[in-house]
C-alpha cells in the first residue's frame, strides 16, 4: 500500500457543487468579477485561511489564481500540500492554483534593485543603516511593500486572479496610510537642495539644506545625535533622492490599481467586540476613500441551534454522555445570542457591504480539516 507522506488533503473536485437555487451569491460574484482581491483585518482572525479558501474557490471557478500570503502558519502550508517559497508554486491539490509567501525584507530589496539605475546606487542604499530602519521598522513599511509586490506580480505574470493576504497590522488603517507615510517621509521640499553633487563646493555646503537658520539647526541636531549621524542622514537623503521619482511613480501606479474596477477589498474579522468595531471603522474608511469592498467575512461565529431543545432530548443524550449538558448548551446559547447581536450591529453599520458569517467550524484543531470545512461552507455563498 503506497501512502504519500503528505496526502492531498483537499477532497473537493473542480466542479462547483450544489449551487443554491437563487443562483450564485455575493462571494461568487466577487470571485468572478475581480482580478485583485486584498484581504485585510487584524491578526488572529483567520485572514490567511480565508485568503487561501478564496484562492482555491477562484481556481475552482476556472481562474488561474495566485495566493500571496504574508505570514502563514506552517500547518497551512501543509494543508495546501506544498512548502511556500518566494515565487509562485503550483498547488498539487487544486488545478489552476498557485501560492507563494512574501518576505518583506526581500520585497524591499527587490524593489530597490529594480528601481536603481546603477549597481553603485543600489549598494549605497542597501548598505545604509537608515535603509534598515526604512525597510523594517518604519510604520507602514510592511504594508507599503506588500502593495508594491502586488503591483509587480500583476505586471510580471498572467494570473486571472491574485489574492493578497496582508500583514496582521494592529491598526487596519495602517494599510491604507502606509504609502502616504513613506512618501511623506521622502517628499521633502528641501530635496532640491540636494541637486548639488557630493564633492562640489555647494555640496559641501550641504548645511544650506536647512534654510536660513541652518547653522543653528545643524548645531541643534548635532547636540542630539552627534555630527557623524547628521552627515550620514544627509547622505542617505541624497541617495534616496535618485530613487524618489520611480518610487513615487510606482506608488501612484499601485494606488491606482487598488482603486480600479479590477480590485476589491475583503474585510476579515472575528466575532469579538474589538474586531467587529475595527471592521466597521475600516469599512467606513475604505468607502470614504472610494475603494471597493467586496465582502465582510466574520469568522468563528457561534450560531443559534436550529432545533428546539427539550428536556427529553437532553435526557436522551445524557444516557450516553454523563456530563452537565445543560451548562454547555447554556454557554452555547449565550455565545450565539451575543454573536448574533454583534453581526446584526455590523450589518447595520455596513449596510452597503455584503456580510458572510462563517460558523465556528468543527475541525478547529486540524488545519486541513478546517480548510475543507470552510470551503464547503463558502461554496454555497
Amino acid at each position, binding site marked *: 500500500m503506497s501512502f504519500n507522506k503528505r496526502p492531498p488533503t483537499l477532497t473537493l473536485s473542480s466542479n462547483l457543487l450544489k449551487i443554491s437555487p437563487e443562483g450564485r451569491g455575493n462571494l461568487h460574484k466577487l470571485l468572478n468579477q475581480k482580478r485583485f482581491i486584498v484581504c485585510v483585518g*487584524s*491578526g*488572529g482572525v483567520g485572514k490567511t485561511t480565508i485568503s487561501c479558501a478564496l484562492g482555491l474557490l477562484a481556481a475552482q471557478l476556472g481562474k488561474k489564481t495566485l495566493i500571496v500570503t504574508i505570514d502563514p*502558519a506552517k500547518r497551512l502550508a501543509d494543508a495546501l500540500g506544498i512548502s511556500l517559497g518566494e515565487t509562485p508554486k503550483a498547488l498539487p491539490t487544486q488545478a489552476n492554483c498557485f501560492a507563494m509567501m512574501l518576505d518583506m525584507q526581500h520585497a524591499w530589496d527587490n524593489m530597490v534593485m529594480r528601481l536603481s539605475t546603477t549597481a553603485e546606487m543600489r549598494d549605497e542604499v542597501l548598505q545604509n*543603516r*537608515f535603509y534598515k*530602519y526604512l525597510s523594517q*521598522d*518604519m510604520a507602514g513599511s510592511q504594508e507599503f511593500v506588500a502593495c508594491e509586490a502586488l503591483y509587480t506580480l500583476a505586471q510580471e505574470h498572467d494570473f486571472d486572479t491574485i489574492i493578497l493576504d496582508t500583514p496582521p497590522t*494592529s491598526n487596519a488603517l495602517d494599510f491604507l496610510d502606509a504609502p502616504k507615510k513613506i512618501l511623506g*517621509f521622502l517628499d*521633502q*521640499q*528641501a530635496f532640491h537642495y540636494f541637486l548639488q553633487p557630493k564633492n562640489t563646493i555647494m555640496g559641501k555646503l550641504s548645511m544650506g539644506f*536647512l*534654510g536660513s*537658520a541652518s547653522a*543653528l*539647526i545643524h548645531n*541643534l*541636531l548635532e*547636540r*542630539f*545625535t*552627534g555630527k557623524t*549621524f*547628521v552627515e550620514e*542622514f544627509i547622505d542617505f537623503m541624497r541617495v534616496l533622492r535618485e530613487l524618489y521619482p520611480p518610487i513615487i511613480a510606482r506608488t501612484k501606479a499601485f494606488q491606482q490599481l487598488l482603486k480600479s474596477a479590477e480590485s476589491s477589498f475583503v474585510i476579515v474579522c472575528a466575532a*469579538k467586540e*474589538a*474586531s467587529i468595531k475595527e471592521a466597521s471603522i475600516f469599512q467606513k474608511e475604505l468607502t470614504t476613500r472610494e475603494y471597493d469592498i467586496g465582502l465582510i467575512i466574520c469568522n468563528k461565529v457561534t450560531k443559534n*441551534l*436550529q*432545533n*428546539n*431543545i*427539550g428536556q427529553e*432530548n*437532553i435526557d*436522551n*443524550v445524557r444516557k*450516553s*454522555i454523563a*456530563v*452537565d*449538558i445543560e*451548562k*454547555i*448548551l447554556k454557554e*452555547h446559547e*449565550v455565545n450565539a*445570542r*451575543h*454573536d448574533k*447581536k454583534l453581526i446584526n450591529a455590523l450589518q447595520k453599520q455596513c449596510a452597503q457591504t455584503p456580510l458572510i458569517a462563517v460558523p*465556528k467550524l*468543527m*475541525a*478547529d*484543531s486540524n488545519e486541513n480539516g478546517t480548510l475543507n470545512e470552510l470551503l464547503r461552507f463558502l461554496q454555497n455563498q
Partner: protein
Amino acid sequence: MNFLEILDRQMHFVCGKGGVGKSTLACVLADYFAKKGERVLLVQINATDSHSQLFKCQPIGPQMVQIGPSLWALNAEPQSSLDEYVILKLRSKQLYKVLLGNSLARSFLEFLPSLSELTMIGKIWYHAKEKEGNEAKFSRIVVDCPATGHGLHFLKVAQKTYETIKIGPIAHEALEIADYIKNPQKSAVHIVTLPEELPISESIDLAQKIKEEKLAPLGFLLVNGVLENSLSGHKNLALVQKKYAPESPEHEISTVLMQRFNAESEQEKQLLRLKFLKKLMPLLQWPLMPKGELAHSSFKQLSRIFSEQVRGEKE
C-alpha cells in the same frame, strides 16, 4: 522564581498579542498594587484608551491623571512626548520652535530610529526616577505595552538607539534606560497569552527573544480565557452522534458537545506547548469570561481571582 519576589519590583511591563487580555492584566496589576497602598502609575503606550472603561473614569490622555486613591494613569503619546523631550533637552521653547519649525529637521527627528518611542519610554523612566522627599514618587509603574510585534520593539528601542547613535545625550540616556529595564531588581516583563496556537507561538517566540537578547528579566506568564474541562475523557462523542438522525435535536446537541470537546482538546494540546516556558516563568491561568459581560464586571472578577492566586502563593 517566586511570584511575590517578581511582584516586588518597581517596573512591570505587560506584553502580548492584541486582544488576549493584556490591558486587563495591566489594570488588574495596577489595581492590586494600589489596594496594597503602593503609589502606582499605570501607563498605556499610544493606545486607544481601554483602561478608563475598566476603572470607570474619564478617558485617559497624555496628561497624567489620578484615577484612584493611590493610582495615577497616563496614555503616552509620541508627538507630545517628543515635544516634551526636545524642550527638555534644548532648555528653551524658542529653540524648540526653530527646530521643529523646519520640516526637514522635524522629519530627521521623526526618522531617528524610533525617537518617538524612545521618548515615550524615556518619559516612563523619568517618572520611575522621580522622588518625593527621599522616596520614589511611584513605587510601582505598570506599562501596558503595544501588542506583540511592537511590544518587543518597544522593549528594544533604548538598546537599539544606543547601539545606532553611540554618542551624544540621546545615546547616553538610551543606555541608562536600557540598563534600568534589564535590572532584575527593578523590572519584570509579564506575558499574556490565550490557549490557542498563534498566541502561544508568539509568546514562546517573545520570551525566547527577550531572554536571548537579554532585554529584560522575565516575570510571569498568564494564560487567559481558559475553558473549564467539562468533557475530558469523553472520546465517544462521535459514536454517540451517529445514533441520531442528522436533523434531530439530539444530533445537534451532540454537535455542540463535539465542538466543545474539540475546543478543550485543542486547549490541552496548546497548554502542553508551554512546558518549556513554564520553567522560565511562573504560570497563572484565568478562566474564560462569559461573552457579552461588561468589561468592568469581568475586571472585578479577575481582580478577585488574581488576589486569591497571589495569596495562594503566600502559603
